[in-house]
């Protein structure tokens, strides 16, 4: 028991490689997920039927199905239809889908809370629909959605631990393999937990701070 602290201290540095993979996975999921989230946020209320149906499908399935199910589907399911992806790519695809689905709703919420008066203001000036979106609706909608998007990013970072089920060597699987090879499960998982927290907690603070900063002009 009294070896716990030194054990954590020795295991922790060996997990940093895993942390890096977790962060990379988070980064690429956001990089590709957010643009799709933005697209679907308009898609779910679009007049164009095909665009709307596709958007609703991706948003509903992405939110309805657990990320774990999407992940298993990409890795173990797709080979049944002759599509074989590496574990990293399938994990990334699943998390991109989840990200797009959740952020679509967050962005839509932000966009819908842009006060109607400002939209009328830009209409009365004679601004085009495109300019209205570009200069008024999207900047403000994103600003309103930003704190909750940052909150989502923290959850996504934690959700990358699911990728251990498809053998991506991220933080969780590194901790697991250290545990199973040394039987020091407790210090290994504590070390992993500390590393997740070391990223998540400051990131959460940052989102709160952002929220405060952004409400300055309102």
């Amino acid at each position, binding site marked *: 028991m009294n070896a716990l602290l030194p054990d954590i201290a020795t295991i922790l540095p060996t997990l940093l490689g895993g942390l890096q993979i977790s962060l990379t996975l988070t980064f690429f999921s956001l990089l590709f997920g957010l643009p799709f989230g933005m697209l679907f946020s308009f898609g779910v209320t679009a007049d164009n039927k095909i665009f709307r149906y596709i958007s609703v499908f991706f948003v509903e399935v992405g939110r309805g199905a657990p990320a774990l199910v999407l992940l298993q589907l990409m890795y173990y399911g797709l080979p049944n239809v002759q599509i074989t992806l590496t574990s990293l790519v399938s994990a990334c695809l699943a998390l991109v889908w989840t990200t797009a689905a959740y952020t679509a709703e967050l962005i839509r919420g932000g966009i819908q809370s842009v006060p109607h*008066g*400002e939209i*009328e*203001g*830009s*209409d*009365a*000036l*004679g*601004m*085009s629909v495109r*300019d209205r979106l570009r*200069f*008024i609706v999207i*900047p*403000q909608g994103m*600003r309103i959605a930003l704190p909750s998007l940052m909150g989502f990013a923290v959850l996504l970072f934690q959700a990358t631990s699911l990728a251990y089920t498809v053998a991506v060597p991220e933080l969780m699987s590194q901790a697991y393999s250290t545990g199973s090879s040394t039987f020091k499960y407790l210090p290994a998982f504590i070390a992993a937990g500390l590393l997740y927290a070391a990223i998540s907690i400051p990131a959460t603070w940052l989102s709160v701070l952002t929220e405060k900063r952004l409400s300055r*002009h*309102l």
Partner: protein
Amino acid sequence: MSHTAPTKIRNVVQVRNLAKAYGDNVVLRDVSLSVPEGSVTAMIGPSGAGKSTVLRCMNLLEKPDSGEIEIDGHVINARKKISPKNLAALRRSAGMVFQHFNLFPHMTVLRNISLPQERILGRSRDEANTKTMELLTRMGLGDKADHYPARCSGGQQQRIAIARALALGPRVMLFDEPTSALDPEVGVEVLEVMKELASEGMTMVVVTHEMGFAANVSNELVVMADGCIIESGDPRQIMSDPQHERTRRFLRAVLER
């Protein structure tokens, strides 16, 4: 005016047989109105009369069910398809000022006024900023250019909104209760600016509860009730000798307040 000798004064705004309903609620019935160049038309009437709706139909913020709107030669007929180009031209000819200013809170005062000039008139940023500063200075707000709207008082925000509309060089300015959200002392600043605009010859349509402004600044008073114009003409004439019982009741209510 039409039955006297032909004059050179032309109408900047003509509204013909405007009608609009929200479901079963008929809000406008056959409203027609002409606004001669350089004149100020004040519009009064009880709440729900349809004053805002007439004004909002003029620049198509609200789509009328039938009727025709002509502003500075741009004609829009409610029953025909409205081309985006025609709509843009009409809106460019009409500047609108709202009760709640409707400024863009995420932009500085300067950007609020310059951005529409760049996007709608195609001015360069320098040209737009020069025009903006000229207008702000005229409004006594030269020092506010780099502030965000939320840091300005209500009266300042409304003057900024007026400057934003003026910067596009409209042929007519439409005001929907521009002082109703302001304290009386602050409202005076805005009324002063409007009075100055009128004296410079700007054509204006003003929905207002400010009877002083209606009596002293406007050339024409339009009284609305239940979706109709029930009376219109010389402001002082109507105020001292209203022809319609509904007008009498409304004026009594306003003046007794």
